[in-house]
């Protein structure tokens, strides 16, 4: 029974309250008893008697009353809920119909908000996957990475083998610790069913299985005894390789496989989840880590440690600090001449996640999140503005409703329903957009971005999106309702029938929103502009070699068969000769590692002919190169580089960079000095050439201090320095990598069919990859800025149209009084410009205050670069003019007669 909805509203309210339900029950029961007593009295029974009998027939009144209360309350609650739902559905349906009928409002609102939401959620998902979520290891919060920064050498090394045992024994904070190196190896096929392939290897100390919590799926993990072999004898297969290459054959454990020509016994299979901090590997090989071996100054291994509960990375670092200087006494062979004190050598401890993800990436993602949050705010301002404009259009409806007695709550519900509907639809669109955007990001992302493989857009993201859009809808709805409330008085009712001008308040709120939008867009654009300038400057830096026209490939010699200097050297010489013989090839040579592909590490080099400063050692990049390398790379050499003939005569010399020469022999001629690498038996080399600017870690890092040694060590030299895995560099300007690759493959196959050639790419791509992190950030920031600019344009357009729409009458009067079209146009454009200029001024202030956070991502550009700020300001002012063109046209073509007639 639902009579007139107006009168019973208080009654319906009361009924939700306990007393009313209870009173109904009491009324019903007392009615019954009264009737029964009356009936009994009619039969001639006395008052008292009738009353007693009626009660007796009824039973326990109090118990019945209680159970009825329980039932009725339950019923009331259910009914209230149903009513609320039905109301909400009706409201939704009504709002949806209205929204669909006004695509001019709905479409821009949904699109702008969807863009803002999608970019926010996409970047948040990236941040969550890469930075916020724990690494996929048990006890991940207790895992740390160790490294050896040396402030006085301006360099950072890894950890040496003797440090493993020393720290495990002496550092209270370390519960367990392990060393590892990532590498590649050739898994040799049997020639029939299996092919040879390059696989990713982890060369580890056995403890890594315990530290990372890896329990073999079958067989056993590597043991400390495996680490005592100089050449590995055992191997653990990854689950993926085992299933892919060996078909999940359980009898593989105990059999041998051929890695680089070495016969390795498979001792176990790792579980599918096993991985290094940096990512998955195919083979787990034992490193040579013997506690009894002499300590060497060779800090090239990555180290991961499990801290005891209660220690943080910082407190562990403090705990280890006093142990470091003592190493000079404990390991005199590794640290002669107060080496630790002189280099500032220490041991840094950082949470493993920070180490894996890297500060730059973390910082970049946080900056981007801030950027897209700004975009979201811009989008919200836009939608708020559109809602306000629309609320204005509906003012009459609202006024009529409230005049008819609609309560404030009803009006609030009206606004909130609209807003929530818009935001939820936008949220759905945004979810689809975010999925697409993340797919594209993963595709675009440079290889250096860690953990992208863990990216997953699923139910969690959808729920995040849904709740976010709901909350935003509620907020927007309430704000719109509040902003329009002031206009709901009788003055407004009169005014709503169309006044000639707008109230200051009406313009003020909308204008402020647009100003804020423009300001935010300026901040974002300034960020993107600074990145763009950095990028341009980086591109303009000469890396020290000519990359165009050079193709590179990787060649790996199986170590078992190429076990002596002569065989390796012969193969390399024949290979270079064969490749040079390919038509179209101008130059070809070999190098241990390509330039700009990350740190080559640092090895101590010693001269026995120091300069005037007396400095005789420096830790630098050492690279082994084949003759012809500098010609092939077009690196100018002062003096001369070695030839194959020099190698045959065992009289090859070394080439140093001028940056190193300046350290060892400042102001003197380095040519003719002798220099030695790393270990005593690597022999002395005469410096025969000097090269100028070269970059190593990236063109934004300092110039490289390096020595180029011959690819082939002196006869009888340490086999440790035998370079079996080398990069081939081929200068063949007319041949694309894809064309050159099969030709080189054929030549290699002719020399030795078991040697794999892989990874043919243009050297210019290698250079581009070294800037990929920055490029990626630039793309993302530029996308965020583009969206923000688009949104500001929409915002400006909406507000100017609104203002023009309301001023048509005024404009009509002006034109009737003789104003010319140009004057009217100036009026409208001027209004847009004022808003834009205020926004730009605020935005420039904001940019000056905030672009500093870009800091390390910038290259030779000041965060306050005036050129960028000027360009950005000019751009937004232009946009303001363009956005006001359509409304201006409309204003200039007002027919005064029509405008004056009203409505």
């Amino acid at each position: 029974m639902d009579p007139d909805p107006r009168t019973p509203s208080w009654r319906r309210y009361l009924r939700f309250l306990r007393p009313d339900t209870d009173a109904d029950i009491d009324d019903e029961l007392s009615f019954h008893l009264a009737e029964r007593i009356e009936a009994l009295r009619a039969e001639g029974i006395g008052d008292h008697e009738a009353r007693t009998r009626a009660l007796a027939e009824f039973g326990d009144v109090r118990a019945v009353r209680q159970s009825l209360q329980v039932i009725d309350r339950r019923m009331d609650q259910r009914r209230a809920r149903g009513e609320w739902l039905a109301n909400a559905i009706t409201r939704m349906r009504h709002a949806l119909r209205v929204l669909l009928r006004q695509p001019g409002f709905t479409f821009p609102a949904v699109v702008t908000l969807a863009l803002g939401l999608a970019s926010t959620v996409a970047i948040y998902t990236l941040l969550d996957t890469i930075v916020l979520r724990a690494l996929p290891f048990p006890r991940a919060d207790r895992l740390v990475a160790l490294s050896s920064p040396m402030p006085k050498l301006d360099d950072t090394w890894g950890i040496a083998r003797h440090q493993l045992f020393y720290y495990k024994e002496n550092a209270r904070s370390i519960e367990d610790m392990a060393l590892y190196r990532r590498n590649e190896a050739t898994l040799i096929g049997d020639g029939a069913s299996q092919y040879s392939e390059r696989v990713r290897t982890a060369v580890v100390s056995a403890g890594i299985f315990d530290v990372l919590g890896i329990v073999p799926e079958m067989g056993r993990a590597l043991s400390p005894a495996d680490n005592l072999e100089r050449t590995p004898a055992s191997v653990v297969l990854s689950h993926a390789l085992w299933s892919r290459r060996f078909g999940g054959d359980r009898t593989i454990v105990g059999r041998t496989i051929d890695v680089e020509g070495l016969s390795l016994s498979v001792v176990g299979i790792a579980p599918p989840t096993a991985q290094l901090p940096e990512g998955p590997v195919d083979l787990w090989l034992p490193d040579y880590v013997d506690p009894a071996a002499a300590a060497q100054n060779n800090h090239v291994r990555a180290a991961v440690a499990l801290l005891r509960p209660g220690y943080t990375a910082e407190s562990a670092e403090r705990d280890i600090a006093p142990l470091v200087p003592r190493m000079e006494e404990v390991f005199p062979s590794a640290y002669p001449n107060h080496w630790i004190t002189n280099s500032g050598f220490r041991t840094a401890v950082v949470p493993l996640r920070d180490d894996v993800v890297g500060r730059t990436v973390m910082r970049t993602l946080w900056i981007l999140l801030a950027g897209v949050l700004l975009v979201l705010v811009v989008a919200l301002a836009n939608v708020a503005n559109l809602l306000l404009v629309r609320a204005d259009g509906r003012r009459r409806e609202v006024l009529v409703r409230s005049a008819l007695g609609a309560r404030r709550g009803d009006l609030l519900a009206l606004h909130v329903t609209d807003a929530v509907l818009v935001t939820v639809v936008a949220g759905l669109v945004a979810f689809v957009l975010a999925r697409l955007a993340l797919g594209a990001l993963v595709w675009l992302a440079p290889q250096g971005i860690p953990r992208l493989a863990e990216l997953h857009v699923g139910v969690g993201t959808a729920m995040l999106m849904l709740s976010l859009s709901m909350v935003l809808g509620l907020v927007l709805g309430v704000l719109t309702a509040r902003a329009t409330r002031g206009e709901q008085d009788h003055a407004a009712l009169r005014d709503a029938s169309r006044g000639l001008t707008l109230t200051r308040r009406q313009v003020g709120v909308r204008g402020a929103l647009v100003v804020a939008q423009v300001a935010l867009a300026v901040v974002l654009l300034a960020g993107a502009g600074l990145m763009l300038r950095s990028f341009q400057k980086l591109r303009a830096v000469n890396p020290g070699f000519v990359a165009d026209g050079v193709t590179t490939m990787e060649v790996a010699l199986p170590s078992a068969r190429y076990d002596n200097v002569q065989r390796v050297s012969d193969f390399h010489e024949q290979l270079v000769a064969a490749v040079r013989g390919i038509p179209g090839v101008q130059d070809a040579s070999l190098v241990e590692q390509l330039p700009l592909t990350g740190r080559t590490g640092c090895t101590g080099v010693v001269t026995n002919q120091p300069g005037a400063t007396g400095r005789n050692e420096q830790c630098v990049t050492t690279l082994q190169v084949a003759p012809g390398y500098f010609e092939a790379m077009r690196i100018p050499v002062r003096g001369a580089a070695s030839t194959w003939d020099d190698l045959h005569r065992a009289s090859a010399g070394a080439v140093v960079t001028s940056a190193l020469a300046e350290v060892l022999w400042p102001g003197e001629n380095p040519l003719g000095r002798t220099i030695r690498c790393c270990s005593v038996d690597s022999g002395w080399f005469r410096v025969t050439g000097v090269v100028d600017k070269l970059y190593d870690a990236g063109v934004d890092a300092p110039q490289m201090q390096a020595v180029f040694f011959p690819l082939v060590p002196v006869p009888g030299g340490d086999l440790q320095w035998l370079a079996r895995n080398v990069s081939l560099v081929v200068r063949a300007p007319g041949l694309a990598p894809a064309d050159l690759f099969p030709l080189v493959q054929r030549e290699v196959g002719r020399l030795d069919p078991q040697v794999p050639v892989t990874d043919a790419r243009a050297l210019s791509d290698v250079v581009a990859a070294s800037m990929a992190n920055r490029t990626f950030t630039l793309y993302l920031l530029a996308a965020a800025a583009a969206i923000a600019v688009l949104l500001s344009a929409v915002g400006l357009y909406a507000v100017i149209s609104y203002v023009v729409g309301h001023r048509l009458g005024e404009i009509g009067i002006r034109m009737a009084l003789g104003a010319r079209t140009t004057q009217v146009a100036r009026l409208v454009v001027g209004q847009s410009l004022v808003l834009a200029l205020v926004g730009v001024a605020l935005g420039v202030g904001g940019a000056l205050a905030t672009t500093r956070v870009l800091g390390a991502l910038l290259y030779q550009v000041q965060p306050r670069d005036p050129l960028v700020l000027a360009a950005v300001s000019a751009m937004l002012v232009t946009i303001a003019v363009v956005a006001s063109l359509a409304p201006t046209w409309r204003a200039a073509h007002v027919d005064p007669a029509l405008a004056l007639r009203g409505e």
Partner: protein
Amino acid sequence: MAQPELDLLQGTLDVLVLRALSWGTMHGYAVARFIREGSDGSFRILDGALYTSLHRMEERGWISSSWGLSDRGKRAKFYQLTAAGRKALRAESASWEQYVAAVAKVMNAAPTPSAT
């Protein structure tokens, strides 16, 4: 309180109430009178139980209620069968008749000689 007996009683009472209301809209007291007079007082139902039954069936959606005035001008709560209630009455009376028939059959049956 033994649960099965109560259930049986409750079910039976529900059928009686539904049956009463199938004659038209009436208030609780009228339903009680209908049952009392219909059974010629041969069984006694506590009036309280009747109200529990009414409210419970209202919650179940079998009957609906509204306030009105009694014959003698007093404010009273009237009950009315809903479509669902009508359906329930049909089902309940069918199973009630089956039950009665089954009980009657057992009561009238002569013992058959057993194989033992």
